[in-house]
């Protein structure tokens, strides 16, 4: 329930500490898929091009650059074959951050946690000369910062992340639809959210899948959601849409809540696994450095 203005955050609430940033520099973002990049980068591309790494041969056709003919083959086989090299290009790293009001919740704070993860991923991307795109969404894509490249922009990225306010209710389906239309280029997409979406998560994920992206979902919940510290006869008010639920807290009800939460998370995970999406669940109680340095590396997003 921390509603502290972002400007007034104490040093321990800063998104990235210098020490952590040095640890992050050793990492890079991986993609299980090889995408076509825009610019020359440090990643293998689908395109054949100019690098030192051999890729393939092909028959010479008229108009090809004679510089790439393999003369040794020509001498042996008397056939002109062209030598192809792997092209190295940059990677699109897109991070979608949920900034709906439900993220402004919990102790440790969900929103801060998510921003920290985003900042860490973005920093890794910047260090490795990837194209980093940041989107903040609630019911629409409210804030965005696209095409950031190079580590000198790190401070701008962090400033951007710190400046996003919490607003509105989350609507992943609408946002994903809009994102799919607007977002050009392929690459890694990381969605950071609690996925507590009244409209359901399935539609949104389907829209994201339609663009053949390497998709990572990180579901972040706070301890208050995992184990509600509630008692008595209550009228529960939803912070996003002021929806009311009258409950009398009892042990069976709490048990039922927990099993429902479990089932919800399991359902999301199964949905993702079936569609080749990497799903990761985390509680904000797990340190975000642990998440970044251990869990995301285990899942193959980072190396």
């Amino acid at each position: 329930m921390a509603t502290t203005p972002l400007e007034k955050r104490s040093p321990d609430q800063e998104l990235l500490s210098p020490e952590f940033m040095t640890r992050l520099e050793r990492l890079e973002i991986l993609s299980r898929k090889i995408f076509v990049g825009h610019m020359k980068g440090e990643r293998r591309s689908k395109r054949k091009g100019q690098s030192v790494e051999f890729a393939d041969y092909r028959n010479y056709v008229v108009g090809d650059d004679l510089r790439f003919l393999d003369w040794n083959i020509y001498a042996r086989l008397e056939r002109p074959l062209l030598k192809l090299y792997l092209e190295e290009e940059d990677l699109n790293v897109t991070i979608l951050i949920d900034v709906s009001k439900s993220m402004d919740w919990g102790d440790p704070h969900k929103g801060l946690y998510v921003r920290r993860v985003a900042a860490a991923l973005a920093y890794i991307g910047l260090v490795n000369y990837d194209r980093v795109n940041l989107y903040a969404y609630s019911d629409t894509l409210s804030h965005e910062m696209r095409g950031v490249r190079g580590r000198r922009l790190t401070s701008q990225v962090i400033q951007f992340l710190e400046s996003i306010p919490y607003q509105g209710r989350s609507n992943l389906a609408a946002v994903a639809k809009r994102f799919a239309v607007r977002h050009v280029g392929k690459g890694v997409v990381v969605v950071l959210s609690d996925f507590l979406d009244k409209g359901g998560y399935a539609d949104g994920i389907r829209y994201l899948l339609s663009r053949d992206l390497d998709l990572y979902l990180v579901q972040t919940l706070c301890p208050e959601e995992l184990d509600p510290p509630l008692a008595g006869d209550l009228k529960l008010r939803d912070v996003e849409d002021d929806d009311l639920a009258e409950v009398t807290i009892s042990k069976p009800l709490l048990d039922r809540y927990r099993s429902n939460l479990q089932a919800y998370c399991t359902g999301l995970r199964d949905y993702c696994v079936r569609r080749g999406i990497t799903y990761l669940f985390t509680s904000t109680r797990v340190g975000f450095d642990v998440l970044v340095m251990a869990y995301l590396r285990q899942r193959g997003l980072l190396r």
Partner: protein
Amino acid sequence: MSFLNLWWAAGIAAIVVPVLLILYFLKLRRREQLVSSTLLWKRAVQDLQVNVPFQRLRKNLLLFLQLLILAAAILALARPIIHTELADQARVVILIDRSASMNAREGEETRLDQAKEEAVRLVRSLNRPLGRWWSLLSFGQSKPQTQVMVIAFADRATVVSPFTTNTGQLVDLIRRIEPTDGQTDLSEALELAQAYMASAGPGGTETEAAAAGPEFPAKLILISDGKLPRVGKTVSAGSTLELIRVGRAQDNVGITALRAQRSYERPENVDVLLTVRNFGPRPIETDLSVYLDGTIRSVRTLRLAQAGPVGAEPPRSSDESPALADTQSLGFSLPLDRAAVVEARLSRRDALSVDNSAFAVIPPPRKLRVLVVSDGRYPFFGSVIRALPLEEFPFVTPAEYEKRRSEYSVDGQSAFDVVVFDKYSPDRLPAGNYLFLGAVPNVEGIQIGPASQNHGLVWWDETHPVLRHAALEYVYVAESRTVTLPPRAQVLAEGPDGPVLFRYAVDGRQYLVLTFAVESSTWWSKLSFVIFMYNAIRYLGGSESEIQPDLLRPGATLRIPVPPASAKVKLFRPDGAKVTLVPDSSGLAYYGGTERVGLYRVEGGLPGRDRFAVNLVDESESDIAPPTAPLVLDHRQVRELASSRTATPEVWRWFIGAALLLVLLEWWIYNRRVMI
């Protein structure tokens, strides 16, 4: 089951139940609480509501349970009682033991106090006043009331209250039962109870008398510490006896025997013999002090072992320390040249204080003055008199006696302790004690018949002090007078034709009469005649207190000799109360109210015989430890009742317990409930 407070509870129910119902229909006010998302909550609530059947019923079930809880609580407030078999008895006799052992202290109160409280509780639980409404419910068949009778007993039984249903009066009378130091004798109490059970008792009507016949026997409830040494009686058929046992204390040391008397050889010395016994479970050490008229004269420290089992040998000791027994006998010899009261006192405080002191009354060392009126023809008679330890014993002839008659009487009373008439009977005698040998006093009621010749003695009263240790088997009488005696005369020996030795007391004069002359029988040559003379002089001379048992038990009747001139005497009891007694024609006053141990003092009595010591000295009463064996009455074991049992126990605890169980059930159901 009945209720004592039904109206009151109904009033509370009338207020509380509507309040509960109103509260129930008021909407629950819920606290508002922000959450990040209601998504999962709604789902959980829906799931629970779908999963649990009878969702609608649940709200009503809680109300129903709460009503049940209220009902149980209100019924508990109504003070429900149940009628036990005891309460259905038509007649209940409560026998309260008030013997000496019931004076044992149990903490703050005595056993008798506890017994009285038990009795009061029992009486109160019988005939409880029920609401009128309840008697309407029972269709007019009102329960017959229980008639309760209360008897207090020690060595004698007293009816505290005859059969009655008046609880208040019974409680009042039970509270007024006074303790005694008597022994325990249940048989008289049982006889008394059965006498009352057979008749309706005073105050009973004709119909009650019919109902109290053998087909409606009573229930006898004995409240005692269980020390009942003399139970030979049984209750009549159909009646049952049950015991409520009180008392748990064991610690007691008591004086179980005391004898104090002047030694015959040296009358100025008093020998005191006593026995002290420890009845407690631990070895004790105590000081035994002997007081003479309240002045301490001797102290000894006693060490007594713990009470062993009855009849057991004292434990064998090692060589160094002498064996300790639980009983120790001691003797004191104290110089005493006057009348005094000897008191032995144990300094140790224990549960029963009655037996911690014992008294004995010592008469003054006194020798008798005896006047012998005889013609002096038989010298052996004089030598017998001379052999007795007497102060003076002038011999006069009948003629001299008649001449100096006025010298021998002072204020209408004989100047001598005893006057012996040998074969002579004067016309008139002053008040005094007289021994007639071979003559009969001229007293109204004694008629002299013809002579009886050559006979032996048929019967004699060996137990009488006068004939103690005197064997009359070989006494033959040549000639005796037959006499006809008034009814109150006490015959001590009989010949074939009637009494030959009798005692008769009238108008302050006491006569001991032998109807034959000693020399006309073989008795003069026998040792028993000397013993008889010794006994007779001592008996008539008033020193029979040495012949009588020294120790009077509580409840014994005091026989108080009164100076012939006084019309009444005052008796001071040990507790300070004063009783005025009127002597009967024989010059004795009787007093039977000696329930308490201690010294009874007579004002205006004969000097030296004006104090009486009543002592417990009873091992069975001093042994206050509760018996381990069950009480057996006429070879049947007496059923024991729990001490807290009442005839109509209150059972509100059950209802409170049920209410608590219901609260638990309600809370459980409430916790399983989910309401949106």
